[in-house]
């Protein structure tokens, strides 16, 4: 396990690595790496980003109660698939991030991806889904205050994260199909993924509209009652 003693550097790295790695993955690689290893390298980097972030979790003081609540929210987001195709995972990830913090948001998103894939089927796309949902949670946790205050902003975030999720997975589709990242390939993948992007955005909005008030109240109440 990687041990960094300075808490400040650790915190900085924990947040910066997933952010730094995704842009680096898309932009910097074609210069240094041969095209045929692009898919391999990008896959490895995503796995590495996840491992780094998750292994940092061991040393973090999240508290037993918060930890259990993360597992509860994960299970709820997987079980809350009331309709086929549309999943409330994004909505519940965002809400957990708002009330339980950015690390909890990342974990709920990433673990929901793994768990729901036990039902939908695991594959090489699992790490990408984990990262995508994890980042949605992380960002929501970072911008928790404004998102909690303005409802319209939260809905905008839901729509945006649906589109961003689809776009991030299109990167994977491109890399996997063409073995390298090309602008045309990405455009083609985005065009095929457009119906899904719209579906994600709409379902995120819908679930956020339904869930924000009741679940937000419940989480706020739990936090107040037990002093988390």
């Amino acid at each position: 396990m990687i041990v960094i003693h300075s808490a400040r550097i650790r915190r900085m790295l924990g947040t910066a690595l997933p952010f730094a790695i995704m842009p680096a993955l898309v932009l910097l690689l074609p210069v240094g790496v041969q095209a045929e290893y692009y898919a391999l390298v990008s896959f490895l980097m995503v796995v590495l980003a996840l491992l780094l972030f998750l292994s940092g979790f061991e040393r973090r003081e999240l508290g037993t109660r918060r930890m259990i609540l993360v597992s509860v929210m994960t299970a709820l987001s997987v079980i809350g698939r009331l309709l086929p195709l549309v999943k409330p995972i994004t909505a519940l990830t965002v809400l957990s991030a708002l009330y339980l913090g950015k690390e909890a948001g990342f974990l709920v998103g990433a673990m929901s991806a793994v768990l729901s894939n036990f039902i939908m089927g695991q594959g090489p796309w699992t790490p990408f889904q984990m990262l995508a949902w994890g980042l949605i949670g992380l960002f929501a946790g970072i911008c928790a205050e404004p998102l909690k205050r303005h409802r319209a902003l939260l809905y905008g975030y839901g729509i945006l994260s649906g589109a961003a999720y689809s776009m991030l997975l299109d990167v994977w589709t491109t890399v996997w199909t063409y073995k390298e990242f090309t602008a045309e390939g990405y455009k083609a993948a985005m065009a095929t993924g457009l119906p899904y992007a719209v579906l994600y955005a709409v379902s995120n909005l819908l679930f956020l509209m339904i869930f924000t008030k009741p679940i937000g109240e419940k989480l706020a109440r739990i936090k107040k009652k037990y002093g988390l």
Partner: protein
Amino acid sequence: MRTYDAMNPAAVAVQLLLTACITVFCMEPVLLGISLLCAMTFFFMQNGTGHKGFHLFALGIPLLFALLNPLWNQHGTSVLFFINNRAITKEALFFGAVTGLRLAAVLYWFRIFSDLMTSDKLFYLLRFLSPKLALVFSMAVRNLSLFRQQMHRIQAAQKGLGLYREKHFIDDVRGGLRVFSILITWALENGIITASSMTARGYGTGKRTSCTNFRWKRQDVLLLVSALLLSGLVIALIAAGYLERVFYPVAVPPDRNFGWYGAVAAYALLAMLPLIHEGKEMLLWYRLRSNI
């Protein structure tokens, strides 16, 4: 008799992931054919003749891929015919077929991986990364079935109250949301109780001790070492360029030298490790039975 899925999860995961990963990053049709053949044979050994839907999906999508690739891919020189003034070339068809083969093989390997690596085994592997995370993960898995049971209980209570009409769409949706909302309240409180109970029993106070469910036996070590060695050899030969294929503008058959045969043979052995194991155990079983 020890079946393949009873082996140490770490060894099995390494073998399956390496086999699948090499398949993903290789475009040599012979190697891909071997990969698909081994995966399908093992899948049939595990599941019999069932799962027709999966076979249809895993073989149909790649076929579609192979047929559609020439439509948007205009590279290649040997034109077969024209559709709407777009040249359909032999090379594009071949490339599509190889890509499809690769896709099918990977789908089968990951299906096998999903079937063998159940959540308890993934939990065992995750402990190496972070015990805390493994705990959260395993509790989430347990919560799934717990919440499902609780949901049925809440549903029954709600029905008993006589709040909803039978077979009524709006009432169904409203009822579903209400049940989910009640479930969330219950789940959060239940989680806090679990956490308090854990704290009361001294969770997080001292160094954590644990027991291992999966032991390392000689067979496991042998499997792990042979998987690592074989895949190392294949990856080294691929990196040295022995399996490189040129598809455009003209498909060139590979230079079948010593390195090519070495890589393909090593990969075949790697992909056949599960089959070899199952075959050996089956032989042993029949031999022992006939002695009784």
